[in-house]
């Protein structure tokens, strides 16, 4: 089985204003897959569709090889989910929540749960409602990890948490991946965190997938070029032209932001009588911003 999550021609609509028209997504097994996008882009909705909490209007969803939402009971036994908002009962204690969860998952790893209670410094007798935001997040992650699933789906797991808690959570996730070879699907807008950890990344905006690529390709393929003498029309470039504007301070050249860049593509410019003065590396956050900008301009023009 090559894909842990496979979405094909997914169509979903909620109300008049929000629509996911046609989504194709493939999360390779064993990967750490980052799902980026601004607020309101449809990330949480996509996750809910994947987990069977929402039903699509049309299209195919397969999680761990099984169709969703038809086989949700079987699939969810192998999926650990951490939602954006704490979803556990505030009147139960940490210990009670752990015991409750353990009863539902045949693969529950009691030793790992205990180890994480210690590592996360959680007190078994504290009520969930009384825990701090960071402790709640840690408990939800603990439950997802102790379930020993083959897939972890995390919706903004470290958002709003202090750096110490974020480190603890990331370390625990990475340890889990090293030991079990699970697939992790993380949606986040903390680009820098995803940058260290993900080997695949997808960007979503306004219900559409802008790009889905291996992290290295997206990160190192996005460059800022200083170009002089380029013609007005760009015909069939080997790279993906994201934005193009004149240089600051009235300098002679233009600033181009391109994607899918590879070394040697400078020959294209020579072919059209232009020249590339400089190739500047962009980190993932800059690349992400430029991608969004070009995508939105493209949609506005239409």
């Amino acid at each position: 089985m090559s894909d842990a999550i496979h979405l094909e021609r997914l169509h979903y609509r909620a109300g008049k204003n929000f629509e996911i028209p046609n989504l194709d997504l493939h999360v390779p097994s064993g990967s750490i897959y980052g799902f980026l996008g601004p607020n309101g882009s449809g990330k949480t909705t996509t996750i809910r569709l994947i987990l069977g909490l929402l039903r699509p209007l049309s299209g195919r969803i397969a999680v761990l090889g099984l169709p969703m939402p038809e086989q949700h009971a079987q699939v969810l036994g192998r999926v650990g989910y951490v939602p954006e908002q704490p979803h556990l009962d505030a009147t139960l204690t940490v210990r009670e929540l752990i015991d409750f969860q353990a009863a539902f998952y045949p693969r529950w790893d009691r030793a790992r749960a205990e180890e994480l209670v210690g590592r996360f410094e959680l007190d078994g007798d504290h009520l969930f409602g009384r825990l701090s935001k960071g402790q709640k997040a840690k408990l939800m992650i603990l439950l997802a990890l102790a379930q020993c699933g083959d897939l972890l789906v995390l919706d903004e797991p470290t958002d709003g948490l202090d750096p110490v808690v974020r480190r603890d959570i990331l370390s625990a996730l990475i340890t889990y991946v090293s030991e079990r070879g699970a697939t992790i699907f993380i949606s986040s807008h903390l680009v820098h965190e995803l940058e260290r950890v993900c080997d695949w990344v997808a960007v979503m905006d306004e219900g559409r997938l802008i790009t889905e690529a291996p992290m290295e390709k997206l990160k190192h393929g996005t460059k800022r070029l200083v170009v002089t003498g380029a013609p007005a029309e760009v015909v069939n470039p080997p790279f993906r032209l994201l934005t193009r504007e004149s240089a600051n301070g009235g300098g002679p050249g233009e600033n181009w932001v391109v994607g899918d860049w590879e070394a040697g593509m400078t020959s294209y410019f020579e072919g059209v009588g232009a020249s590339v003065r400089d190739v500047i590396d962009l980190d993932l956050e800059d690349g992400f911003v430029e991608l969004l900008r070009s995508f939105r301009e493209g949609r506005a023009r239409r």
Partner: protein
Amino acid sequence: MRAMFRAILHSQWKWSRLIVVLGTVAAFAIPLLSLQGAARADRGAPQAQELLRAVQSWGTLYPLLATALGLLMAIAAWAPDHRGRHIHALTLPVERWRYVLLRFGAGFVLLAAPIAAVLIGSSLAVLTATLPPGLQAYPIALAMRFAFAVFVAYAVFFAVSAGTARTAGIVLGVIAALILVQVVASIASIDLNLVNAAQTVLLLGPGPLAVFSGRWMLVDV
């Protein structure tokens, strides 16, 4: 399955233990209170009438208690899930119908306590009372009727409560509409008694809700 049921039972117990305890105490007390007059030695026919009146008037508390227990247990079963918008329950590896059934069963197991309390309380009341001649005691029939009433009330309110907020809203909306129409009709002096009609249809007609109407007599002729 057993582990899942135990887990659900534990959480439901935690949410509803106050209701169960209070309900059990009340269920135990009502039969004893209804027969408190019968502990006195000298009894004749007029005392029998008095006793029957006391039993009947205390007896009106049984359907009220059954309804209250059914309603509160149904709410307690679902309120925490509603608060979390059911996300936790829906992402557990169980079919929805199985989960709903487990919750229903757990609530019913907990309701065994007040039902048993009615049986024990009424048996105890009958044992310690001296009944005037011509009167019989029906503790078991009473307890069984109470059990049935509790079951019906719990089932009805559970069904409403387990639905989405939209379903609950629809039910409440229908009730509110009935009341509104009734009020308008009485203002316009139109002779329309919807509440009575509803009562007749729901409670007096043949059907499970009929268990609530009529007299609840621990002791009768």
